[in-house]
């Protein structure tokens, strides 16, 4: 039992290194898949023990004591990462081109698992950096600018966390979560950490986790990084890696919750710091969804959509009530599952057609039927259509937000889900329906491993949609208290109920009735796409009948006031200024003539003299 955790965390890394070493097409895929499968096996094996007590493992590395612990809560996060990891591995079997991608994909997999399981800050920081670096290398291969933007932002986040850890270490003298939590708890009375310092700590940790989760002002890296990496890896990148940021926010509550509450009190009945997180989440949802609707590139659309969906989770945690946490955790699972599925579908499309822009695609529904079916499931789940997992988690978040009297934040969810519906239908129209461009006629269905990966991610979508009780019952156990009542098929909260099975049955009943009415009419005759009403004009094959570019032009016009400002351009300008400053600094200081150098010496002597005498 003891070294189970070590195998669980470092199996993917070892497999990655082996896959990189034996860079042969057949072997590295097998090794990579095994590396991704081991965590799933171990997690399944430890499910029973985790419910009762936690598994611990400590090693001392370089003078630091690294503690790894598997409790019910981080088992949940690890399981989510494992599911998406297996799907990614299957996806990468057909889309990866070299051992390089396997090495860094599995290294980031190790990083995420390590982050979820570590119980002390040094191990947490080490594996966090490892995860960031590995995902950066996946993007560096394809696009330098985007990858550097991603790395600079995440490194700023990581170093902010480093500063936070150092301050905590200076204040409490400890590095592992348990003692820090205890020290901070006792600190309420002593007050060693002042209001300013705890504000600084909160901001530092919020930036660190905000960057990784893609919260509003720091989300600019997501579209570039998600769309440039190998698409099947992006399913893991956006499905599991963004969960590390969200796990961090959860950690913030566990460690500093009481302290922050004592320092900042409440605002209209909500914890002030939680209120800040809720509003960041809400703004992320609205902004990212609006941007997602206006995108022309399939990868950019899903990247912004992924940022928006993680905004939901932030919002749910920001609500602060236990129902909020339950909703957030459920959405962690459902987001990982349907977003992972979307990215695998994108991977299949790009793999088969080689196109990424909406204007070049179209009419793929007949050519790739299975991928289309998977895409449809993901669409239903993301836009929150009742029998799907997406709806169950979003429903919990609604309940939590409105119950906690956060009306405007709940309003943001409504707007966000409307927009989600819009860009998801945009994806359906641009890629699957309408007339097929002539160069896409010989497109075949995606290769088998990719299809299996999609199937693996589609099943939980339906399973947890029809029976959300499975997840909420586990969450109740993880939190130890009865947050969401009801059995496997029914969710009962203090103010509302949602019987998933009944909704599904009635929906099937409704479909049956509608089907009967449909069959009653005359038999239908299939006609080609060109036989459509164009005010009577004859339509021929090579006249494209679909509107794929600028699908939401009117919305862009309605929003042009807001679209003038872009955080992306803002950060690029800052980077430019910093680089110019660096250059002027170099020119002014190292200007190359000795006289000025010796003047520097004289100045230092003067300072020493003044210093010495004073």
């Amino acid at each position: 039992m003891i070294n189970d955790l070590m195998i669980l965390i470092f199996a993917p890394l070892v497999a990655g290194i082996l896959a990189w070493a034996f860079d042969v097409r057949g072997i590295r895929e097998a090794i990579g898949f095994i590396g991704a499968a081991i965590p799933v096996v171990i997690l399944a094996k430890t499910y029973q023990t985790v419910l009762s007590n936690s598994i611990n493992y400590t090693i001392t590395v370089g003078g630091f004591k690294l503690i790894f612990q598997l409790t019910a809560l981080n088992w949940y996060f690890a399981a989510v990462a494992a599911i998406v990891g297996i799907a990614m591995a299957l996806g990468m079997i057909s889309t990866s081109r070299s051992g390089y991608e396997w090495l860094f994909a599995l290294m980031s997999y190790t990083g995420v698992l390590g982050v979820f399981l570590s119980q002390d800050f040094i191990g947490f920081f080490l594996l966090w950096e490892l995860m960031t670096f590995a995902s950066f290398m996946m993007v560096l291969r394809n696009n330098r600018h985007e990858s550097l933007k991603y790395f600079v932002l995440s490194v700023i986040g990581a170093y902010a966390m480093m500063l936070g850890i150092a301050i905590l270490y200076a204040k409490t003298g400890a590095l592992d979560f348990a003692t820090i939590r205890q020290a901070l708890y006792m600190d309420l009375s002593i007050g060693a950490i002042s209001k300013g310092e705890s504000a600084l700590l909160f901001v530092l940790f919020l930036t660190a986790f905000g960057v990784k989760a893609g919260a509003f002002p720091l989300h600019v890296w997501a579209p570039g990084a998600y769309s440039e990496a190998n698409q099947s890896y992006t399913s893991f990148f956006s499905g599991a890696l963004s969960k590390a940021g969200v796990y961090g926010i959860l950690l913030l509550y566990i460690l500093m919750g009481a302290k922050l509450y004592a320092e900042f009190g409440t605002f209209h009945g909500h914890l002030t710091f939680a209120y800040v997180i809720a509003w960041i989440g809400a703004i992320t949802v609205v902004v990212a969804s609006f941007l997602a609707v206006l995108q022309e590139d399939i990868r950019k659309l899903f990247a912004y959509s992924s940022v928006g969906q993680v905004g939901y989770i932030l919002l749910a945690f920001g609500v602060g009530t236990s129902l909020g946490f339950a909703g957030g955790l459920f959405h962690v699972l459902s987001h990982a599952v349907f977003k992972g599925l979307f990215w695998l579908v994108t991977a299949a499309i790009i793999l088969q057609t080689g196109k990424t822009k909406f204007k070049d695609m179209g009419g793929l529904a007949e050519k790739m039927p299975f991928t289309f079916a998977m895409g449809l499931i993901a669409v239903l789940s993301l836009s929150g259509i009742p029998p799907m997992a997406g709806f169950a988690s979003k429903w919990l978040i609604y309940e939590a937000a409105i119950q906690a009297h956060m009306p405007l934040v709940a309003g943001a969810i409504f707007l966000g889900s409307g927009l989600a519906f819009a860009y998801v239908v945009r994806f359906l129209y641009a890629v699957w329906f309408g007339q097929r461009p002539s160069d896409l006629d010989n497109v075949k269905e995606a290769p088998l491993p990719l299809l299996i990966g999609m199937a693996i991610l589609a099943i939980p979508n339906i399973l947890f949609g029809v029976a959300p009780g499975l997840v909420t019952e586990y969450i109740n156990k993880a939190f130890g208290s009865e947050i969401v009542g009801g059995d496997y098929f029914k969710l009962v909260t203090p103010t509302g109920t949602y019987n998933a099975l009944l909704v599904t049955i009635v929906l099937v009943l409704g479909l049956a009735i509608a089907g009967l009415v449909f069959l009653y009419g005359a038999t239908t005759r299939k006609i080609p796409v060109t036989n459509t009403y164009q005010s009577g004009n004859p339509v021929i094959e090579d006249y494209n009948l679909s509107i794929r570019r600028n699908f939401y032009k009117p919305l862009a016009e309605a929003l042009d006031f807001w679209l003038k400002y872009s955080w992306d351009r803002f950060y690029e300008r800052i980077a430019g200024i910093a680089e110019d400053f660096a250059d002027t600094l170099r020119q002014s200081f190292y200007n190359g003539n000795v006289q000025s150098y010796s003047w520097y010496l004289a100045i230092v002597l003067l300072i020493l003299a003044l210093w010495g005498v004073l």
Partner: protein
Amino acid sequence: MIGIDWKIVLEVIGMLIYATFMGFIFMGIERKAMARIQRRVGPPLYQPILDTLKLLGKKESVSHGLIYDFGPVFALGATITALLFIPIANFQLFSSNADLIVVAYLLEVPMLGIMLGAMSSGNPYSAVGVQRGLLTMVAMQLPYGLALIAIVQHWGSFKLSEIVALQSVHGWSITVPALLLAFIVFDIVFQAMLGLEPFDIITAPAEISMGPMLEYGGKHAALLFTQHAVQLFAETAFFAVLFLGGASNLIELLIKQIAVLFIAIFVASIYPRFTIDQAAKFFWKWPTIIGIIAVLLTV
């Protein structure tokens, strides 16, 4: 799973027939009222039933593929589901197991069905119709949400049956000032949900000839007409339940539904049509501001 207790099955079947019939009658009322306002005689009340029968009676039907057929079927199925979860008069049906958010979402699902079918027909007019339909839906989502949140916050519960019970005790929602604002917002949004005049950009007859439903003929159009009828009935019932205190018996509910319908018809017969970005800008200006005020008052 659920013991098949025949009482519910009968209730469901009866309700479905009643709702479809009354839905058609409401569409008839709509056309008749519009005609009477324009001092025309106007078609008989049962005209939509005739139209649907004629469409069903078409000798042959044309289809652009599986999804083209699945669209209308899914739309009608979803609307029937939505209907069965609303507490209509004293019939419980399934409303004990679902709350406001579930019904609000179920009322939006038919939009996806129609969009699916319209898009797969590959006709540019229907594509423009789909785009406008989605944008209207996006535009109205915020005020719609705010109105619903105001209600839930005031009554403190999500269950529709509970809200109806509370209203019967404390008086209708519109008697509460804050919820009156929510009523106004919901009424504007109701106009867009039904696709009536100021916001009927979706099926703008003159511009894009019937919008998404352009390629539908024969039994597909019949399906869409029945779906529109059931949706009309469901939405008016939802409106009545939320704001006008539901009803103990069908007659009372019918009166309230027709009252709501007439408000919509009067507004529809006066206003010209908004273009889509005007509609979006309008929705995010006045209704949202009123909605925010309503929500803040009830918190």
